[in-house]
C-alpha cells in the first residue's frame, strides 16, 4: 500500500475515534437540519404561497445541500483545532505522508456525513418528502451531495489552516450559516431582485439544491436561471471540481509547511 493510503487510513481512523470519543458537536450539527426542517416546514411554510407538503418536499433537498455546505464550518473548525495543537507538530516531525492528515480528515468527514444524513432523510420521509424519480437518479443525487460535502470540507480545511486561532475559525465558521440563506435552498429565487437573484444562483449551494430537486424529482429546474442552476448537475460537478482543485493542493501545502 502506498504511504499516502496507509497513513491516510490511519488518519481517518483517528478522526473517527475522536468523534466517537466526543460526539457532541457532530450530533448537534446533524440534528440541526432536522429541527430546521420542522420549523421551516411547519412554521414558515404556513406563510408561503406553496402548500405545506409541497414546501417540505422543496425544502428537504435544500436542507441537504445546506447541511453539506456546513462542511466548511466543520472542516475549518477541526483543522484550526488541530493546527493550533501540538499534535500537528508531532505529525510534521514524523515520516508521515504530507497529504495524509488533511485527506484523512476529509474522508472521515465523508463517512460521518453519509451516516449523519440518514436521520434527516427519515424525518423528511415522515413529513411528506418522497423520492419521485428513478433509483439511479436518487443514487446520483446522493453521490453529488457527498461530492459537494467533500469539496466544502476541503475549503474548510484550507480556511482552518489559514486562520490565526481556534476562536477566529469558530467565529468565521459560524458565520457561514448565511451562505444557504443567499441561495435557493429555502426559497425559490424567481422573485428576488435581479442582482440578488444572480448572487443567489451563482452560489454553489443553489446548483446542488437544484440538482437534488431535479434528481429526486421534487421540483423542476427553474426557467431563466443562471448557468449553474439551469444545468444543475454539470453546475454542481463544475463547482466541486473547482473547489477541490483549488483548495486541496493549497491545504496540503499549507499543512506541510506549517508556520514556515
Amino acid at each position, binding site marked *: 500500500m502506498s504511504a499516502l493510503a*496507509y*497513513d491516510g487510513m*490511519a488518519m481517518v*481512523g*483517528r478522526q473517527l*475515534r*475522536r468523534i466517537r*470519543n*466526543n460526539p457532541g458537536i457532530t450530533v448537534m450539527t446533524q440534528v440541526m437540519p432536522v429541527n430546521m426542517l420542522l420549523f421551516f416546514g411547519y412554521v414558515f411554510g404556513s406563510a408561503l404561497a406553496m402548500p405545506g407538503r409541497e414546501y417540505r418536499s422543496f425544502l428537504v433537498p435544500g436542507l441537504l445541500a445546506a447541511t453539506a455546505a456546513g462542511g466548511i464550518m466543520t472542516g475549518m473548525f477541526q483543522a484550526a483545532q488541530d493546527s493550533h*495543537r*501540538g*499534535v500537528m*507538530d*508531532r*505529525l*510534521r*516531525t*514524523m*515520516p*508521515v505522508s504530507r497529504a495524509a492528515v488533511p485527506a484523512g480528515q476529509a474522508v472521515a468527514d465523508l463517512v460521518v456525513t453519509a451516516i449523519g444524513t440518514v436521520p434527516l432523510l427519515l424525518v423528511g420521509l415522515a413529513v411528506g418528502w418522497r423520492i419521485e424519480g428513478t433509483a439511479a437518479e436518487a443514487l446520483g443525487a446522493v453521490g453529488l451531495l457527498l461530492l459537494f460535502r467533500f469539496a466544502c470540507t476541503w475549503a474548510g480545511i484550507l480556511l482552518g489552516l489559514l486562520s490565526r486561532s481556534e476562536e477566529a475559525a469558530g467565529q468565521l465558521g459560524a458565520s457561514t450559516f448565511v451562505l444557504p440563506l443567499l441561495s435557493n435552498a429555502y426559497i425559490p429565487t424567481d422573485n428576488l431582485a435581479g442582482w440578488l437573484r444572480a448572487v443567489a444562483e451563482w452560489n454553489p449551494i443553489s446548483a446542488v439544491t437544484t440538482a437534488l430537486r431535479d434528481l429526486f424529482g421534487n421540483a423542476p429546474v427553474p426557467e431563466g436561471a443562471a448557468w449553474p442552476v439551469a444545468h444543475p448537475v454539470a453546475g454542481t460537478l463544475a463547482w466541486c471540481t473547482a473547489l477541490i482543485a483549488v483548495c486541496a493542493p493549497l491545504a496540503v501545502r499549507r499543512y506541510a509547511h*506549517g*508556520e*514556515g
Partner: protein
Amino acid sequence: MTTTYAVLSEGLEKRFGAVHALRGLDLAVAEGTVCGVLGPNGAGKTTAVRLLTTLLRPDAGSARVAGHDLAREPAAVRRRIGVTGQDTSVDGDLTGRQNLRLFARLHRVRDAAARAGELLERFGLAEAADRTASTYSGGMRRRLDLAVSLIRRPDVLFLDEPTTGLDPASRNRIWDAVHELKRQGTTVVLTTQYLEEADRLADDIALVDRGRVAHTGSPAQLKALIGSHAEVVVPHADLMARAAAVLDHLTGSEPVLDPGRRAVGAVTTDPTLTLPRLVRELDGAGVPLLDATLRPPTLDDVFLRLTGESLGTAKEVAA
C-alpha cells in the same frame, strides 16, 4: 579518535518579523550523549528545537541531524528523530491507548496494540489508558507524550522543557527514561531552564543566550567556572569593609557590597571553603555576623557571570 556528531549546526538564523530569535546558533552534540540546552525564556531554545526537528526552516545556516542534511533531506531526518514539544503533542481527543496505537501504526510498528500496552505500563499510564488524554494531569500528558516519542527508538530525541511545571514523581519518571535512553545509545537534546535538570542528565551543556550558544561545557566545568556564592550580613554598615577584606582574602574574587542590606558577597571556586570556615575566619577577624550563606551556583549565577544578564531580567521574547 574522531567524534561523530548526532547534531551539528552552523550559523542557524531565524527571524520572526522584528524578532531575531536565532543569531547564528552553532551546536555540536556528540552521538550517544545527552546535551542540555540551557537558557532563559526567549533565548531561542524552542526555536532551535523547531528548526532542528524540521518544523521551521532556517533563514540562514545549515545543520545535520542524525547524519542527514536538514534542508536537503528532511524526510530522512524525520525517520530518525523523536520530539516531545513544549506544548503536549498528543491528541487530547483520543485516549492514551488510541494515541499510542495511532502513532505506532504511523511508524509501521507491526503489533501496534502490544507496543501501546507495553509503553502504557512502563510510563505508569495503564490505569488511565482508556480515558481521553484531555482528562490527564499535566504530568500524565507529558509522560504519554514521551511514550509516544519512544514508540520506535529514535537515534536523536529532542525534549523541549520536558519537566517544566511537573510534579516530582512525573519529573523523576522522565529523568529515568532519559537515563535509560542514553544507556541504549540514543542521543538526547534537552532544553531546560533548570540547572539541576541539566546537571542530573546532561553530559554537556550549551548555554544559549539571545539566539547564540554563549558557552558550552560539562556541568562540572560550568560550575567550576561559576563557583559558589558566599554572602555575609553584618550588623553595622561600617563593618562591611572589614567583611569585604576577609572575603577577598578567602575567595580571591572581588566582593560585591549591598549597603541596603549591609550584605557582602563573593564568588568562590575553592572547594575547601566551607560555611564553618567562612564563619570562623570572619569571627577571628572580629566581624560580628547576622547571617552567613554559602550556596552552590544557580542558573541565574551562571547567566549573570557568562552573559552579564540575569535570568530574571532577560528580555522576554516569545521563543
